[in-house]
């Protein structure tokens, strides 16, 4: 009974993680501008990492494999945002400006 519930839960987590991974890939390919692509890739990366690793850990049970999975997950969760920050910082330092439009007081767009 409990095992079936755990199976269903881990299946749902893994599928949700796969969907997030796909959304991140499509966003990184199709969004305009570097910073929007960075945003799509880094946010979905963190979410998919949590979902997929927790899903696999439920399958692994209490074992050394689960410990290793937890270590990899924590490491990815620390390094992913760090790499994204370093990337955005390097791009901004080198003079790459975000593509954005500003709304003036009448609500019309101006570049």
């Amino acid at each position, binding site marked *: 009974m409990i095992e079936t519930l755990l199976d269903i839960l881990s299946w749902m987590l*893994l599928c949700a*993680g*796969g969907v997030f991974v796909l959304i991140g890939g499509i966003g990184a390919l199709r969004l305009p501008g570097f910073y929007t692509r960075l945003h799509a*890739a880094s946010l979905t*990366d963190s979410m998919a990492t949590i979902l997929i690793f927790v899903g696999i850990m439920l399958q692994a049970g209490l074992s050394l494999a689960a410990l290793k999975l937890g270590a990899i997950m924590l490491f990815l969760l620390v390094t*992913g945002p*760090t790499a994204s920050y370093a990337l955005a910082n*390097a791009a901004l330092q080198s003079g790459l400006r975000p593509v954005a439009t500003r709304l003036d007081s009448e609500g019309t767009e101006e570049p």
Partner: protein
Amino acid sequence: MYVAVSLAILVTMILALLRALRGPTVYDRVLAVNMFGTKTVLLLSVIAFLMERPDFLDLALAYALINMVGILAVLEFFQNRTRGAQEDGHD
């Protein structure tokens, strides 16, 4: 279910490769390579359980470490290069 997740990750790796080939700026390419590396770690972890070979988890851990160091090194290289180019322009 592992097969479905592996397929999703593989498709995303192809999309990241397309972005790396297309990317207008060098930072787009670095972003795509970073994505590719993270997805490799995820894929290795899923495959370890798909094929029931837990040794693959060690590979995933090592790959995560190498990927992080590699991305930071490449970024540092490009940042120094653009800074040097700007300083050359001022002189």
